[in-house]
């Protein structure tokens, strides 16, 4: 079926691009002494937004199923702290520490999923509880301290341990210095999410559940299991984000990721995935991520004051959502 030009303009992807183009135009106008036109600026933007992108991929799954996951920022911190403890202080090899960190994130996601699917909690409440609990766990296992190569002893002196190689491996650029490894990690997770949503049966089930949960149940969709898996993956992706965060900071900070869940939700919404569920996709989330990433970068390049940044970011979110409204 062919689409007329006006129909193409009405597709969510094109509408999502409106906000992105607007932001890019702003970047061209205020290019920070030409820094906006240099390749390194774009490469660095992609690196710093990748952590948010990882959270947004998991959130996209949950949001399409009609839920929300507020716990991703806290799971990021838990993952960062656990990964740092395991690799720096317990001497685990990355081959063990990385799967263990993912499993931990998935486990927290599974608890949210259980509460939502079988406990019949509202997703907001279940993941709010998980958010608070995961933050507490991050502070508990780190003893309220940043987990770094420097260990403070009881008498106030400190000794330092070597930084495990895996930190440098994740926080480096590859392919001729052109792309950060964390960006590649994001792209891999993005591709996995895309395949699951667009090509896999489970993805279709998520859309069906988000569209009409009762009808899906009656037509034989395993609703509880499908929803549960969305939260598990969201938790695991947040743990991956935690590993990336730790590598970039060279430490596991139990306070890391506070407020990141809201940025991730903004990315999903700006892309055009509906918070009521059933509509959207991770490709849209990619556009949302670029919008937020570029806006942040341009404001930073121009050393714009914090107050102006907040106002402009709020305005862009509102504008992007407005552009998503159907114009019937």
């Amino acid at each position, binding site marked *: 079926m062919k689409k007329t030009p006006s129909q193409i303009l009405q597709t969510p992807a094109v509408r999502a691009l409106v906000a992105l183009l607007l932001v890019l135009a702003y970047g061209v106008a205020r290019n920070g002494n030409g820094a906006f036109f240099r390749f390194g600026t774009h490469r660095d933007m992609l690196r710093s937004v990748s952590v948010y992108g990882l959270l947004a991929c998991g959130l996209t799954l949950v949001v399409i199923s009609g839920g929300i996951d507020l716990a991703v920022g806290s799971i990021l911190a838990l993952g960062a702290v656990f990964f740092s403890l395991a690799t720096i202080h317990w001497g685990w090899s990355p081959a063990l520490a990385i799967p263990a960190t993912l499993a931990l994130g998935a486990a927290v996601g599974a608890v949210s999923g259980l509460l939502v699917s079988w406990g*019949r909690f509202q997703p907001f*409440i279940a993941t709010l509880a998980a958010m608070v*609990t995961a933050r507490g766990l991050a502070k508990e296992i780190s003893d309220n301290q*940043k987990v770094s190569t420097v260990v*403070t002893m009881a008498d106030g002196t400190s000794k*330092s341990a070597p930084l495990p190689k895996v930190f440098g491996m994740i*926080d480096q650029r590859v392919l001729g210095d052109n792309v950060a490894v964390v960006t590649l990690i994001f792209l891999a997770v993005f591709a996995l999410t895309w395949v699951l949503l667009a090509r896999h049966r489970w993805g279709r089930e998520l859309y069906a559940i988000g569209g009409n949960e009762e009808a899906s149940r009656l037509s034989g969709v395993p609703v509880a299991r499908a929803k549960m898996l969305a939260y598990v993956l969201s938790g695991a992706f947040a743990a991956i984000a935690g590993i990336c965060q730790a590598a970039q900071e*060279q430490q596991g900070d139990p306070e890391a990721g506070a407020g990141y869940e809201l940025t991730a939700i903004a990315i999903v919404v700006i892309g055009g995935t509906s918070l009521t569920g059933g509509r959207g996709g991770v490709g849209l989330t990619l556009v949302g991520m670029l919008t937020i990433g570029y806006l942040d970068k341009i404001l930073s390049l121009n050393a714009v004051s914090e107050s102006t940044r907040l106002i402009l970011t709020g305005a862009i979110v509102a504008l992007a959502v407005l552009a998503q409204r159907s114009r019937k």
Partner: protein
Amino acid sequence: MKNLALLALVAVALVGCGSSSEPETKTASSGTPTSSGSGSTAGKKFRIGMCQSNNGEPYRVQMNNDILAAAKEHPEIEVVLKDAQNDSLKQRAQLEEFVQDKVDLIMISPKEAQPLTEPVEKAMAAGIPVMVIDRPINSDSYTCFVGADNKKIGIALGQWLKSKLKPGAQIVELKGLMTTPVAQDRHNGFLEGMKGSDAKIIFDVDMKFLEPEARKEMDSALARFPHIDAVYAHNDPGAHGAYLAAKAVGREKEMMFVGIDALPAEGQAYVAQGIEAASFQYPTGGKEAVETALKILKKEPFEKKITLESKFFTPDNVKAGGELVK
């Protein structure tokens, strides 16, 4: 539907409990929690209640450790710590608990001045001496204040940097949360200390005392300016984040990084590793507070306002334990 609402209510209550649960208490003498209000301890021992504003900050954890370490030297005192988790009203409640508990002395490192001024006055009126640490309150009704002067530290850092820079140097300033007096003082003091220098601040932004923010902002500064001589960050994690950004583009040797706080595990370690050219200490005052508390309890003379001396650390003096800021 009713069921669901009930469940939600329970969940909210649970979450509420989680964040406002009993404060963690620690004692210097045994290191195990004590139940508050146990009057069975020997009468000779002085009991000190310490209201910490937020154990989530490394600086405050260090202050707690300094207090506990100093208290360990004096078996006649026992310190109970409460953490207000960055909440002024929670801190007020914990202060009132200590008053109810009739401890011999209260220490408080207030989160904010206004909400805690009256509670401190009431504790004083109840006959309990109150020592205010680090941040002031809005009245003179306290026994003793122990704190450092951020503006002085900013001035000292500015003067030090001025002496190290070539003429016409270009500086990046990564500011802390500019809505706080801490960041304002560190900024204004720095400008005052730099007076008379022709160095230029070419890029200044608010990184909110957060390392990931500092790294992101420094990325931008590096993209924009082909040459930078120095980075002044309002805290050491900020300087560390800026260093990592410069290192990622191979420019970390081009500029020097200076920061404030000089905690053993952060600033002092960064200086020792050659990351920071200098870190200026923001002392916790834990040791001084305990020593003054003893004077107060034993009715010996003491100064009402104690301004802490600060040290600075450079690669040359870090092994020797730093140098006093004049």
